[in-house]
């Protein structure tokens, strides 16, 4: 990265190659549309061309890159919804008024382990469909934290949220994805009913 910052084109090319799949994958999972994901990817790396020499190294380069890609994707989602494209700070809706945690409804052991499931052809489609059903403000937190491996602090900073808001959105995302996936992957023979007054 230091060579790229110094103006070395080959080093910049290598930097792009190292990160492009990650940026494109994030954009595809947010937007589910190839053209939009391509636009986000191009915008993101054009930002790198413009700003790499000013990169102060306060957050890691990856966090910075994913922040740019995330904001570009959220901007497209708001445009799709016909909402005004407002400032980036407002676009991530810092105030989350929903305090309720979704209660697990369908509870069952899965028939196969994750190691077995990744071998199946259907699994990618299933994962993508479950992700698409999430509200984008929950989807983006899950993608940054659980898929990209950013910490809660880095995720919160990337989105301009408080850590507690980030954690709540992550919890909602995880529970909703679990619910969706378990309906297909769960073994109905092991289905359980949760007692709402259960205490130990």
């Amino acid at each position: 990265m230091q060579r790229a910052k110094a103006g070395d084109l080959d080093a910049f090319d290598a930097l792009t190659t190292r990160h492009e799949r990650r940026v494109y994958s994030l954009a595809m999972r947010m937007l589910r549309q190839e053209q939009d994901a391509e636009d986000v990817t191009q915008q993101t790396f054009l930002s790198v061309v413009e700003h790499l020499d000013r990169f102060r190294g306060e957050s890691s380069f990856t966090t910075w890159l994913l922040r740019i890609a995330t904001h570009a994707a959220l901007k497209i989602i708001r445009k799709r919804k016909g909402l005004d494209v407002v400032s980036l700070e407002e676009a991530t809706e810092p105030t989350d008024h929903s305090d309720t945690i979704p209660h697990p409804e369908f509870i069952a052991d899965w028939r196969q382990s994750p190691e077995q499931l990744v071998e199946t052809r259907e699994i990618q489609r299933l994962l993508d469909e479950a992700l698409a059903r999430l509200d984008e403000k929950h989807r983006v937190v899950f993608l940054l934290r659980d898929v990209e491996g950013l910490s809660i602090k880095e995720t919160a900073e990337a989105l301009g949220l408080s850590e507690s808001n980030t954690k709540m959105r992550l919890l909602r995302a995880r529970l909703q994805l679990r619910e969706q996936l378990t309906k297909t992957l769960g073994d109905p023979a092991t289905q359980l009913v949760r007692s709402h007054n259960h205490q130990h």
Partner: protein
Amino acid sequence: MKCEELLKMLNEYVDGTVDPAICEEFEKHMAGCNPCRVVVDNIRKTITLYKNGQPYELPVAFRSKLHATLREKWKAKHPVK
């Protein structure tokens, strides 16, 4: 610990950042509550599946165009002296 309280601490338990005393309460609850045990197991598997998912490959034509565009912009920003 009630099921409701366990749900609220789910993130911290699954991520291994929960206080040891609460962790013990958590595990005591799950030992006697099958639904909560299964939900926690489901969540762990959900995260594993997504974390180990395949990245999307850039379409070949797009990748070529992207790199060509970036190289041009880079050269314009960093002219060879």
